[in-house]
């Protein structure tokens, strides 16, 4: 019984994952890291939708995009880009920071 339940769960996840990922995804947004600072420091996005944020690290050194509000902690290599998948977000302000250079912070405002 338990085994059957697990098999159904795993198969269900495998089948539905790709479909669910495509639903209601917003157009990409970009945050640039240059001289260890985020640009823009405030990014406004639509609330209630899935969201892709491209983090473009134009510094030669790696950086970590970290946010307790968003529950994210992802490293982007020097001179590389990465995508951070977020949401759907409730209306509000979500703080984030560069974990390797903590003086650099930013906010995502969902409205």
């Amino acid at each position, binding site marked *: 019984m338990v*085994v059957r339940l697990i098999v159904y769960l795993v198969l269900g996840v495998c089948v539905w994952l790709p479909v669910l990922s495509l639903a209601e995804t917003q157009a990409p947004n970009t945050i640039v890291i240059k001289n260890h600072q985020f640009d823009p420091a405030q990014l406004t996005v639509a609330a209630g939708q899935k969201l892709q944020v491209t983090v473009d690290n134009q510094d030669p050194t790696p950086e970590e995009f970290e946010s*307790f509000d968003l529950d994210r902690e*992802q490293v982007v290599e020097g001179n590389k880009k990465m995508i951070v998948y977020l949401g759907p977000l409730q209306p509000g302000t979500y703080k984030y920071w560069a974990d390797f250079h903590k003086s650099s912070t930013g906010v995502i405002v969902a409205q």
Partner: protein
Amino acid sequence: MKLKVTLTTIAFLCAIGLSHPAYAEKDVFSPNAEEGEWELESTGLYDSDPHKDKNAVQEYHYSVGYGVNSFWHTELELETETQPTDDAITKFQATHMEWENIFQLAPKGEYWVDPGIYLAYEAPLINKQVGQFEGKILLEKDFQKISNTLNISFNKEVGGGADTHTDGGISWSTKYRLFQYFEPGFEYWNDFSAISHQLDYNQQSHQVGPCFYGHLFGHVNYDVGYLFGISDAAPRGEIKWVLEYEF
């Protein structure tokens, strides 16, 4: 501030003083790997039960881990334990060396649920023990500030004297991300033993209880909880903790 001090004290006592846990690593694994991050981790548990054979079982794990890339975290772990016998508690001994690997199957948040796979091999360090392969399906889903993690595990012993059947289990963690340094939640653990045997509820181990998680001083993660046994096979009570330093 007082709360911070209290939590730090609990974490510290868990790490050094109470040091005495029970049978398997009590850590619900997230499917997420953090590239380039090193971690030193101490995991432990301590069982209490009116029955001698389930009382004062203790197990400690010490590990070093590294995020090789954005989808692979690997860890080397030393397991130590002590088991009760008819007339005494056996002395502590290192029983296994384990190589653990977590493979993140998709970037966090890309899909409705975050998937991952855990693969590990436990090599015995003493003659009477056997080796073991362990696999887990790791799933995580956030609903706003509530984070839910499910592990579905399968174990297979290998080597001379190994059991022929495959064991399985489920562990579940739910936490509310209240503050970065304090996230209350609960965990449920089920060890349903041999998959092919389908044991009765009371022959399986079922545990549930409150747990507290958090991130302190920028580098320290803690997870401490108390699990109540809710089936005959489970110990009546169990203290569990995970203390991790990441850099």
